[in-house]
């Protein structure tokens, strides 16, 4: 029971943090010329933060639809990998799995994988997923409603985006391949900024994932991340 409470506490804390990030997202959409409805629909249906921020940030700076969509979809592709490992944890009716698929994001997967057994993995996945879904959407709505009343520059909200990305990327840079991919991706992006249309530098950075190629190539059953 205390274990369950610990999971609940962690999920709630995470939810609150994500809610603040959601406020920044809502403000971002509105100051990028989007509507409150667009912000809310995006957070409800897309529901994967990094992709949403990336799409809005590219669109806000005048990037094309293809550039905004391409970068955001590449970021969303990792949820397929998360889905593979979570499909071992959440089994059952198709409807249950389709609902669970929507909740498959960084936070819910990470929390689930941190638990020692299937039962607690299941609890952690659902509580974290639902907490983040609720808080992310509430935050987005609040941010979008106050958005026009707030000058993002005065509050440093333009820096809230990359700051959030820094927090999300840190765990991915703690191993050698991740660090290499991050360094190359960042270098490619900065080098291209002056020479290519907006959005292209982010897309081009994805070439750095080729660091994953070297090494053995057996077929995996989705247990690995």
């Amino acid at each position: 029971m205390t274990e369950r409470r610990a999971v609940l506490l962690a999920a709630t804390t995470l939810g609150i943090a994500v809610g603040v990030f959601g406020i920044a997202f809502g403000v971002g959409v509105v100051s990028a010329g989007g509507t409150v409805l667009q912000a809310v629909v995006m957070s409800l249906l897309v529901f994967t933060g990094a992709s949403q921020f990336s799409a809005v940030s590219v669109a806000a700076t005048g990037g094309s639809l293809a550039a905004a969509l391409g970068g955001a979809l590449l970021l969303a592709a990792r949820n397929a990998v998360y889905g593979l490992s979570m499909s071992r944890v959440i089994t059952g009716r198709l409807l249950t799995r389709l609902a669970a698929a929507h909740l498959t994001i960084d936070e819910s997967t990470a929390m689930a994988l941190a638990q020692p057994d299937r039962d607690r993995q299941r609890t952690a996945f659902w509580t974290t997923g639902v907490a983040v879904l609720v808080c992310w959407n509430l935050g987005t709505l609040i941010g979008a409603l106050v958005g026009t009343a707030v000058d993002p520059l005065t509050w440093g909200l333009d820096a809230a985006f990359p700051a959030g990305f820094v927090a999300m990327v840190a765990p991915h840079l703690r191993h050698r391949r991740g660090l290499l991919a991050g360094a190359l991706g960042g270098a490619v992006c900065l080098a291209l900024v002056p020479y290519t249309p907006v959005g292209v530098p982010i897309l081009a950075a994805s070439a750095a994932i080729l660091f994953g190629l070297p090494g053995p190539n057996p077929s995996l059953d989705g247990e690995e991340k």
Partner: protein
Amino acid sequence: MSWTLVLALAAGAYGFKVLGFVVLGGRRIPARLVRCLALVPAALLSALVLHDTFALDRTLVVDERAAGIAVAAVAAWRRASLIVVIVLGAAVTALLRRFS
């Protein structure tokens, strides 16, 4: 911001989730592909961080954001929570703007 972007992204994002969870779930996929996909966050999020810190349209600049993100990066590396990292990055940037 267009509705095309919002709805296409919604369809694509859910498509990826269902692909992994329901379609591929339980099947075997090549280890190389898994390793490459696992590097997507490292590559793209690093690019986004540097882009949003140093790019102003199509020029590169060093301004208050750089200091804010540097502080946020130290906090993130020392495993501060998401909320602390975001607030630090925004607050440092906003304070420097106010006093510069």
